[in-house]
């Protein structure tokens, strides 16, 4: 009768860690039930693991109550802070700039002799259609940006409040209103509607009429 193959250390450890599944788990489990040698080998690994856990638990790692309070305060400020806005802006910086530029070009198209720069005719038509009505989400109206795919479902969109540099708006050709520069740091608060594809779908400058 052939001697059963003993599982190697890797298999015994993965069995110990619950990382085996299906037939492999059954095979090793059955083997362990009748092989004291492998059980002893696995037990050694279990004891070593317990030792690591104990050594790790011995590290004093309690936080002061002040740390949690500090985190809570930072969280309360975070959504409206400039730093978080910068990070969000960085996520899709050029996409938003491009979208704003495209939207502006479409907005100004009827007033200028220059044709707006758009990727395709279809984009232009789509943007014009959207701009004519804007995007209304729960009573909030966004200037449409022809960047996100309008075929995607709107109910999966999300809105991110951020500080948008006024200079970026000006560079994009947006007619900056005095009331938009209330932050005193060259930025204006705006809600940016992001489509399900993560691209800007619309923008609502907060405080603008």
């Amino acid at each position: 009768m052939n001697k059963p193959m003993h599982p190697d250390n890797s298999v015994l450890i993965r069995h110990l860690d619950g990382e085996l599944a299906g037939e492999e788990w059954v095979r090793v489990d059955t083997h362990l039930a009748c092989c004291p040698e492998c059980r002893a080998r696995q037990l050694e690994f279990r004891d070593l693991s317990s030792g690591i856990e104990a050594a790790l638990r011995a590290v004093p790692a309690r936080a002061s109550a002040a740390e949690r309070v500090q985190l809570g305060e930072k969280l309360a400020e975070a959504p409206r802070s400039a730093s978080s806005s910068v990070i969000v802006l960085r996520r899709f910086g050029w996409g938003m700039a491009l979208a704003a530029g495209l939207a502006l070009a479409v907005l100004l198209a009827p007033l200028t002799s220059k044709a707006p720069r758009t990727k395709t005719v279809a984009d232009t038509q789509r943007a014009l259609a959207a701009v004519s009505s804007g995007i209304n989400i729960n009573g909030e109206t966004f200037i449409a940006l022809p960047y996100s795919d309008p075929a995607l479902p709107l109910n999966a969109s999300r809105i991110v409040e951020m500080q948008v540099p006024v200079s970026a708006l000006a560079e994009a050709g947006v007619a900056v209103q005095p009331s938009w520069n209330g932050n005193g740091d060259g930025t204006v608060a705006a809600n940016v509607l992001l489509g399900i594809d993560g691209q800007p779908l619309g923008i609502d400058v907060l405080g603008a009429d």
Partner: protein
Amino acid sequence: MVPVRAVELSAAEWDETQPVDAANRLVLELYDREHVSLRRYLLYLGVDPETAAETLQETFLRLHKHLLGGGNQSNLRAWLYRVAHNLARNAQTSFRASRTGDLSEANARQEIADTIATPEERFLAREEEVRFAEALAKLSAAQKSCLLLRSQGLKYREIAEALNLSISTVGENVQRGLERLKELL
């Protein structure tokens, strides 16, 4: 306002009508649940306590942004370890090779578990912890990280995600780390 999407979170955890409040609550809940384990992990890697505290604050603030940005919420624990690990690595150009001395001091200050009844048992327990700490310090950084995260209850796929390794590499590091510890102890 259209709510920030919450993936794989129950309605009880994520109030779609108040995404900012929901994110704040979830971050603090995760902080309460995970900060001790995260801090221990960082300290054991050789990060000094002050840097560990700063790293944790930044990690949870990034989690907040991650949640509000509609980031993947399928495995936030692995996400936390990955961000904390990377932030700490950046903050300290290299983890100290050994924390044995610090751990001895730490052990002396540690409140002994209720289950350890006598002074002799307490002394032996501390000796054992120091012995393990010394042995762990001799492992490679990857082996040590994998074993520490495994000790925190992370599955191999979570460790792989946290350390940006493949699952099979995690398995190899766990196996070789344990075999090395067996030789050393």
